[in-house]
C-alpha cells in the first residue's frame, strides 16, 4: 500500500543538489537556534529548569500507569469522554466514529503530530471526510499534498515564492505576490470561513494533567481555540507520554517549551481545556501506538520525555542540510530518528545513521534526553538485528579484516597512496563519497609506521645520548 521508503541519504543527496537553497535552509534553521539561545540565556536558572523538567518526566515514566488512571478518572469527572487506542488504526477508527456519530463530513484540525504519525488525514479522506488543517504552515503543506517537514515549523522547507504559487492556485491570490503579510491575510480569510462552518474540531495535546484531568494546547495563531470554541465537538488526541503529574508542573514546561522551540518567552496562547462548553462534547483519545514498547526498552525509554519543541532539529547539522522530508517519518530530525525505529525497525533503520553524533541535540534538549547516545545505541541494535544495508555490512567486514591484519593494512595503505598519487581518477570520482563536495587531500609520502621506523629509533638514540 505504502510507497517504498527512500533512504535518508538518497533524499538528502537530491536536497543538496540546489546548493543555494540548502544554504538558505541551513541558515534559516540556525537563525531559529540562535533565537533559542538568546531566550535561554535570559533565564539565569535555565539549566535548573531543564534538570527539573527532566526529573518530572522521569517520574512520569516511572509511574505512568497510576497517572494515566488518575487522569482518566478526573477527565471523566470533568464530563469528558475518554477513548483508548492501542495503535494508529484504532485511533483513526475512533476519530472517524465520533465524526460519523455527528453526521458530518467535515472537520477542522489544529496541529497534531500524533495524527500525522497515524496518517489520520489519509484515513478520513478515504472515508469521505474532508479535513482542513488550520495551522498556517500545515495548511500550506496540505494544499501542496506534502507532509510537514518540521514539527514546529511545518513549511520551513518552502520559500515565500512557493507559498505564493500554492495560494495562487488554491486560494486565488495574486500571481507573483510574495508578501508574507498578504499571503497570511489570504489564509486568515480562507480559514475563518472554515472555523465558522465546522462542527467538529480536532486538536493535539501539549500537556495532560493527571491531577485535574485537563489538557493544555499551545499555539501562536489561535487556530486550535478558534476551531474548538466554535465547534460542537472537540476531539483531542494524545500519546500517553504527554502526561504530567500536577498543574504546577506546567510552570516548568511552559517556561521551557516556546523558548526552546522559537525563542519566544511563551506561545501566544496556552489554553487549558478542562470541561466541554455547556451542551457540547469533548473527547480525549489516549494513544499507545508503540509507546508502551518503547517504555520497555531501557536504553530508549526516555525518548518518551520529548515535549516536541523541535530544538534538536534546528541545531542538527544533518537536519539543516538534508531537510525534514528526508527522514520519511512524522517526526524528523534527531528525536524522530530515535522514535522511528521503535515504530518499525526495518523501515527506519537508516535514520539513526543520519547523524554525526555531534551531541548538539542533547545539549539543547529542554528535558535532557540523551539523543545522540540513543542514536548510537540504535545503531548497535539495528546492526545486531540484521537491519544494516548489505553494502555497509560488506564494507565493515572488509575494514575489520584490514584493520586486524598489520600486513594487509600496510599493503592497503601503500596501494592507496600509490593510487592517489599516480591514478587520482580512481578516487577523484563521484563513486567515492569522500570526494563529494570536497577535494581529496594530497597523498602523504609515507605512512606513520614507515616514518616511525626511520625516525623513531633516531630520536630514541638522541634521548639516550
Amino acid at each position, binding site marked *: 500500500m505504502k510507497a517504498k521508503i527512500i533512504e535518508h541519504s538518497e533524499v538528502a543527496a537530491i536536497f543538496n543538489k540546489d546548493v543555494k537553497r540548502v544554504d538558505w535552509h541551513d541558515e*534559516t534553521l540556525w537563525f531559529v537556534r540562535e533565537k533559542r539561545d538568546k531566550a535561554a540565556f535570559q*533565564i539565569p536558572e535555565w539549566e*535548573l*529548569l531543564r534538570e*527539573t523538567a527532566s*526529573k518530572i518526566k*522521569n*517520574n512520569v515514566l*516511572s509511574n*505512568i500507569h497510576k497517572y494515566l*488512571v488518575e487522569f482518566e478518572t478526573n477527565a471523566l469527572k*470533568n464530563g469528558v469522554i475518554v477513548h*483508548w487506542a*492501542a495503535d494508529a488504526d484504532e485511533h483513526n477508527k475512533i476519530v472517524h466514529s465520533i465524526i460519523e456519530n455527528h453526521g458530518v463530513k467535515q472537520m477542522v484540525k489544529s496541529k497534531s503530530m500524533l495524527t500525522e504519525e497515524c496518517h489520520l488525514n489519509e484515513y478520513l479522506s478515504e472515508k469521505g471526510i474532508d479535513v482542513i488543517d488550520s*495551522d*498556517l*504552515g500545515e495548511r*500550506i503543506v496540505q494544499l501542496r499534498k506534502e507532509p510537514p517537514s518540521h514539527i514546529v*515549523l511545518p513549511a*520551513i522547507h*518552502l*520559500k515565500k515564492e512557493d*507559498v505564493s504559487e500554492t495560494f495562487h492556485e488554491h486560494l486565488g491570490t495574486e500571481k507573483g505576490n510574495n508578501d*508574507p*503579510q498578504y*499571503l*497570511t491575510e489570504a489564509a*486568515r480569510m480562507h*480559514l475563518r470561513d472554515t472555523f*465558522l462552518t465546522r462542527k467538529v474540531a480536532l486538536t493535539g495535546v501539549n500537556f495532560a494533567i493527571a491531577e485535574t484531568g485537563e489538557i493544555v494546547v499551545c499555539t*501562536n*495563531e*489561535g*487556530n486550535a*481555540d*478558534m476551531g*474548538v*470554541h*466554535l465547534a460542537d465537538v472537540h476531539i483531542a488526541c494524545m500519546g500517553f507520554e504527554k502526561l504530567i*503529574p500536577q*498543574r*504546577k508542573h506546567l*510552570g516548568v514546561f*511552559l*517556561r521551557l517549551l516556546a523558548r526552546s522551540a522559537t525563542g*519566544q*518567552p*511563551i506561545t*501566544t*496562547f*496556552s*489554553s*487549558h481545556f*478542562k*470541561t466541554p462548553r455547556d451542551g457540547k462534547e469533548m473527547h480525549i483519545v489516549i494513544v*499507545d501506538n508503540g509507546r*508502551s*514498547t518503547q*517504555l*520497555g526498552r531501557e536504553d530508549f525509554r526516555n525518548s518518551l520525555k520529548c515535549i516536541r519543541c523541535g530544538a534538536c532539529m534546528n541545531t542538527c547539522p544533518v537536519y539543516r542540510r538534508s531537510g525534514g522530508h528526508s527522514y520519511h517519518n512524522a517526526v524528523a530530525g534527531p528525536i524522530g530518528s530515535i522514535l522511528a525505529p521503535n515504530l518499525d525497525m526495518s523501515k527506519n533503520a537508516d535514520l539513526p545513521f543520519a547523524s554525526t553524533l555531534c551531541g548538539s541535540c542533547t545539549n539543547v534538549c529542554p528535558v535532557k534526553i540523551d539523543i545522540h547516545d540513543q542514536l548510537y545505541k540504535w545503531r548497535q541494535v539495528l546492526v545486531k538485528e540484521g537491519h544494516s544495508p548489505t553494502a555497509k555490512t560488506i564494507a565493515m567486514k572488509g575494514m575489520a579484516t584490514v584493520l586486524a591484519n598489520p600486513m594487509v593494512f600496510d599493503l592497503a595503505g601503500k596501494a592507496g597512496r600509490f593510487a592517489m598519487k599516480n591514478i587520482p581518477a580512481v578516487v577523484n570520482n563521484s563513486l567515492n563519497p569522500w570526494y563529494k563536495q570536497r577535494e581529496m587531500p594530497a597523498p602523504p609520502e609515507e605512512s606513520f609506521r614507515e616514518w616511525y621506523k626511520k625516525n623513531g629509533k633516531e630520536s630514541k638514540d638522541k634521548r639516550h645520548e
Partner: protein
Amino acid sequence: MSSRATILEKIQFNQPSSVTELPELDTLGLEVFNILDTYKTVLQGIGGHFVEVKDYDAIIDFVKKNYPAGKRMITTIPELSKIATMNWMNVDPHLLENVELTLVKAHFGVAENSALWVTDAILGQRVSVFIPQYLAIVVNKKDIVATMHQAYERIENQVYGFGTFIAGPSKTADIEQSLVLGAHGARGLTVFLME
C-alpha cells in the same frame, strides 16, 4: 480485552520497577527583577502594546480615540458598558464573527512572558478573545507576578472549565520565518495597566 486494559497492562509491565522522586519546585522563579518594567518590555517585544491608566474612564477615552466608532465592541466589564455591549454572552458564538474589539479583565499577568490569565469567569464566551479583530485586556498593576511558577501558585485550585494565558497578538512566522501579526486571532493586543 479492551484496548484500555491492554495498554495499561503493557505499561505496568514495561515501566521502570521503582518510582523516581518528583523534584521540588520551591527554588525556581526566585530571581528578583522589576516586575512592571519587565512586563512592559516583554509585551512590546512580542508585538503587544500597553497603556497605563488610572481608571476605567481613561480606558473609555483611549478606546474612543483609537478604535473606529460604529464597529462592534463587546466586553464583560460593567464599567465599560458605555462603549461596548454586554448582551452577547448567551448567543451562538458564531454571531461574534463581526466583533472588532473585545475588552476583558485578566485575573493576573506574568512579567517574564507578558502573558495574561483569563478563564470562563471573565470571558463571557470562550471564543470572545479569539474571534475579534482586536483585543484589549485590563490588568491591575499589582496583579502582575514574576514568573510562571508564581502564576500557577496563584491559580492554585481555581475552578474553571477553560482558561488560557494570552501573550501578545495572534501571530505566525510560517512563511519564510517572516513574523506576521494577526494569524487567526486578534491582529493587535492592547494591555491596559491599571493603578
